Every structure is written in structure tokens, then in C-alpha cells.
């Protein structure tokens, strides 16, 4: 049995991961719900009208994007004005959800390193790199 596992004691790294996961997922759900209401109730102006999305949601994603110029990737970071759109706020909440795992793994990496568990530090770093590369849009 692994030396740092005591009688049904849980690894510290598991507890750290769980703590971060709990915090980010609670915030994520609140953000998701709040962002959606801002979007559908049109509390902020929209970059693409909802009716236009609904009229084209039978198209392939690439075709809809070409036709409506819907936000994709980090394109909304171009200006502050682009950020203050109802649909972008809802889009941001989905970004947050997709980033949540990176935050958990980052804290796990630090804990593995502090425990001098270099094999898992390397695995966790590699995993964070894979997710960051995916999030950067470099491979699309």
C-alpha cells in the first residue's frame, strides 16, 4: 500500500483537489444560471440576436459561424465593448466550466510537488499543458 495512505485516510492531494473542485463548481453553476438569464432576458445587448441563432441552428457549426459571426474561442477579448454583451456573458460561463479542471489540476500539481512525488507532479503538469494547449486554440 502506498506509504502516504493511512488507515482509510485520504491522500492530502485528493482533499486539496476536492476543495478546489467544490468551490469552482459551485461558482460555475451560479455563473451558468446567472449568465443565461442575462442572455435570454436580454439584460445586456447581444452580439447575435437569439432569433438569428434559432433560425440557423439546423446548420453545421462552421456554416452558422460563417453566416452569423457568432463568438468562437477567445474572439470576444478583442475589446471591453465586445465583453459587455449578453450572449458573451453566457459564453464566458461555459469557458469558466471548461477551465475548472485546469484550476483543480494546478493545485494538485503544487501538492504533488510539495510531497516530493515527482512522477505525479510530471503527470499533472503534462495534463495541465494538454488542457492549456486545447484552450489556447493552437490545434484547431
Amino acid at each position, binding site marked *: *500500500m*502506498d506509504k502516504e*495512505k493511512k*488507515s*482509510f485516510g*485520504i*491522500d492530502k492531494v*485528493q482533499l486539496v*483537489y*476536492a*476543495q478546489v*473542485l*467544490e468551490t*469552482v*463548481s459551485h461558482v*460555475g*453553476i451560479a455563473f*451558468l*444560471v446567472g*449568465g*443565461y438569464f442575462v442572455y*435570454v432576458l436580454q439584460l445586456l445587448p447581444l452580439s447575435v440576436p437569439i*432569433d438569428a*441563432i*434559432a*433560425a440557423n*441552428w*439546423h*446548420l*453545421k*457549426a462552421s456554416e*452558422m*459561424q460563417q453566416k452569423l459571426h*457568432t463568438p*468562437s*474561442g477567445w474572439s470576444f477579448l478583442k475589446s471591453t465593448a465586445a465583453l459587455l454583451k449578453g*450572449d458573451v456573458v*453566457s*459564453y464566458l*460561463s*461555459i*469557458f469558466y*466550466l*471548461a477551465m*475548472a*479542471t*485546469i484550476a483543480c*489540476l494546478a493545485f494538485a500539481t503544487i501538492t504533488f510537488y510539495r510531497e516530493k512525488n515527482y*512522477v*505525479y507532479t510530471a*503527470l*499533472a503538469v*503534462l*495534463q495541465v499543458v*494538454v*488542457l492549456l494547449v*486545447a484552450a489556447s*486554440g493552437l*490545434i*484547431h
Partner: protein
Amino acid sequence: MSSATRKILISCAVTTLSLVLFFTIPQVVYAVQPHVAEQTAWWVWMILLFAFSFVLGIFSVLAGVGGGVLFVPIVSGFFPFHLDFIRGAGLLVALSGALSAGAPLMRKGLADLKLGLPMALIGSISSIAGALAGLAMPANVVQLLLGVAIMGIAALMMRARVYGTPDSQEPDALSKMLHISGVYYEESSKSEVSWQIHRTPLGLFLFMVIGFIGGMFGMGAGWANVPVFNMLMGVPLKVAVATSGLVLSINGAAAAWVYIFKGAVVPLIAVPAIGGIMLGSKIGAKLLSKVNTRSVRMIVIIMLVVAGLRSLLKGFGI
């Protein structure tokens, strides 16, 4: 014939009939009135999507599968959205479900980071490749492959009753090197259960394949992760289910970025789906002790078979 068997048979027959009607009627309606989908207000579709996802969430918990696996095949059969957006939403459904359930399972030692991390690393790379491949393929080819995959999942679910506590096996060299082993407290027997794994290299290979399929179809992969962990690698069922969620949260996040950058994630569709499934899952968890899960599981298998057939027919352009 016992009354329990009769109940199961009746519920299966009713479900099959309802599903056949449910799947056939939209075909007839669309054939008569091609613009029916466009004539319906967007908010009606959103309410329907939320309600539908809510029911799927209940069923997924009662049947012991993730919501993601039911979402893509069934929603693609009923709603007017392109498969790209359904797959994008499906990945987020699977990801958010795994995230929201993860913390307590990790604290109990059921979701194990040292077991999940190597599998997730290889699975996340292949899920990105799968997502890129899936979005590059023509929709009818993806529908066809999705039909085959769903039929395979239904077959796997029918075999799932053989899951259980695996025999203790000698751990392999790789699992020893990675210190993959654990102990958790089993509440039913009030005792500690220790576990170790074997066949790690084969497990890693299969997680690569599963990651690719999950990314390609935008489905959660609990249906495949759990049997690989449990039946192949010797992980106890509870640890297998919980760690599968951990792997899913990482693989899903990786593939989700591909869908986001390809414009296949539309918040208008994704958020009600996530909300409905998550709320339904919570209700499903409360109903778990009161419902005959065997018949629910049978209903879900029938739903998957019908959805798989429908996907195959769509793939063939029928």
C-alpha cells in the same frame, strides 16, 4: 411468471410502443410541414429541451449511466438542432455532471486521483483528436458511426449485471511504479476495502480508444470507463464509477475546447441542457431507493436501441 417479471415486461412493452410512436410522429409531421421547426418560437424549444434533459437526468441516475451518453443520441432524434451543437452540449452535460459530483467522491477516497490521472492524460489527448475528427466528418457519417456506438453501448449495458467485486490479482509493474492502489470505507459491510490494479498498459490503451470515441460523439464515457476499470483492471465497482467521473471531467474539458473553437457550443442550447440534466440527476438520486432500477435500466436500454436504430437510418439518409 412472477408479478415483478410481468411488471418489467409490461413497462418494456409500453415504453417500446411509446418510443416507436414518439420517433415516428416527428418524421410524419416534418414530411407534411417542413418548416414546423422554424415556426415554433425559440423559447418553446428551450423549455422542451430543459424538460427533456430533466427527464433524461432522472433516468440516467436510475439506470446507472451518465447523462451525457443518453443526451446526444436521444436529443439528436427529437430536436431541430444540428448534430454539431448537440455534441457540443453533450460534452458539457457530461463535464458539468462529473464536476458537480466529484468533490464528495474524492473526499471519501472513491474517486482516486492516482488511478485517474494517467488514464485521463492519455484519454484527453485522444479525445481532442476524436473531437477534431468528428467535426471534420460529414454529418451522415457521424450519425452512422453514432448509431453503431449506441448499439454497442446498449449491448454493454445489458452485460453490466456481471460487474462486481473483482478477484484480488497481483499488481503489474506499471501500477506498482505509479503506486496505484487504495483503500476506502465500505458502508454496507462497515469495513475497509483495499484494492490494487493489474493490466495497466492494456487499460491505458483502451482509455485512449474511449477518449477518442467520447470526443468524436460528444458523449460521456462512463459506459466504457467503468467496465474497463472494473472488469479489466480489477478496480472495485464503487471506485471505478467514481474515478470514471474524474477521468470524464478531464477528457470532457479537453474535447470541449475543440467544440468551442469550432463554434459548436451555443449557450442558448447548452445551458438548458446542462441545467435540466443536473436538476434531474438530483431528483433521480432521491428516487433511487424507491424505484425498480432494473426496469428503468431496461427502459433505458430500449431507448438506446431505438435511438441507435434511428441514428443508423439517418446516417443512411432514410
